[in-house]
């Protein structure tokens, strides 16, 4: 090749590590990986619905400036999600861990982990009063996560 460019992988040295200015309050990030997040998602949705919707509405109404104007709402969303994960860890650690490990081992397919999901849902309902409900599901049928018979149920 005629070019003599040095291989310059500058994504390694161009990481911007400047912290947020102190005028913006700090918040601890959730820091969970995809498996625990997926496992806790319906409980996060149940407890944090108001905060989530407030944040998304703020973003929508900010007219393209939501990144800067909705920081306060975003911190509330993060704090709420963190609180859910912390509470599940406190009260239902073994069930939670069994479920997200199952999800991680099964390509994050919820239908392959029903037998460990049921104890988790029961424990979370008993200790935190959070339920898993799927919005928009047909009202005359058993919700998919509660079914015991079906084409995709009981085969895995």
């Amino acid at each position, binding site marked *: 090749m005629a070019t003599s460019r040095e291989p310059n992988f500058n994504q*390694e*040295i*161009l*990481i*911007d*590590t*400047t*912290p*947020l*200015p102190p005028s*913006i309050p700090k*918040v601890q*990030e*959730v820091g969970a990986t995809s498996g625990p*997040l*997926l496992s806790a*998602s*319906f409980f*996060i*949705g149940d407890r*944090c619905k108001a*905060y*989530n919707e407030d*944040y*998304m509405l703020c*973003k929508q109404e900010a*007219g*393209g*400036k*939501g*990144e*800067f104007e*909705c*920081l306060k*709402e*975003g*911190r509330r*969303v*993060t704090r709420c*999600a963190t609180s859910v994960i912390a509470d599940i860890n406190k009260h239902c650690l073994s069930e939670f861990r069994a479920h997200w490990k199952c999800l991680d081992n099964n390509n994050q397919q*919820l*239908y392959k982990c029903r037998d460990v999901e049921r104890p988790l849902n029961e424990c979370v309902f008993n200790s935190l009063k959070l339920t898993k409900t*799927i*919005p*928009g*599901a*047909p009202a005359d*049928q058993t*919700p*998919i*996560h509660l079914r015991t018979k*079906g*084409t*995709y*149920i009981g085969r895995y």
Partner: protein
Amino acid sequence: MVQDLPPVGGYGPVQYRRNLPPRGFRPSHYLFAMGALCAYGFWEAGKGIKEQRELAREKVWSRIHLIPMLQAEVDRDTVRRQLAADAREKELMKDVPGWKNGSVYNSDRYVRPNYVVTPSQDNMKRTR
């Protein structure tokens, strides 16, 4: 000389038709059986499709519940980078008269930058 003639009473009957017993059921029964099998298959497939739809709904809603949390985290990072970039630009361009800091677009909407002003490599923080 006697002429060659048929036997007395004529020839016997010639068997020109096949004499095989009909095998299996009547053809119409096969048709009905195939139709019934197809109907059962479609019924089962329909059940599976409806179930897949519910599984997809569950998957989508699990994601919808997580989106605000993920987006909030990304937004904080975006703001952090943008504020750092603004400070960097201000510092780099402090000697240029008439330089206008900030967005190059005629709008105060946030636009994710395609190009980022970076300090020279000497000042750059090496992470490894």
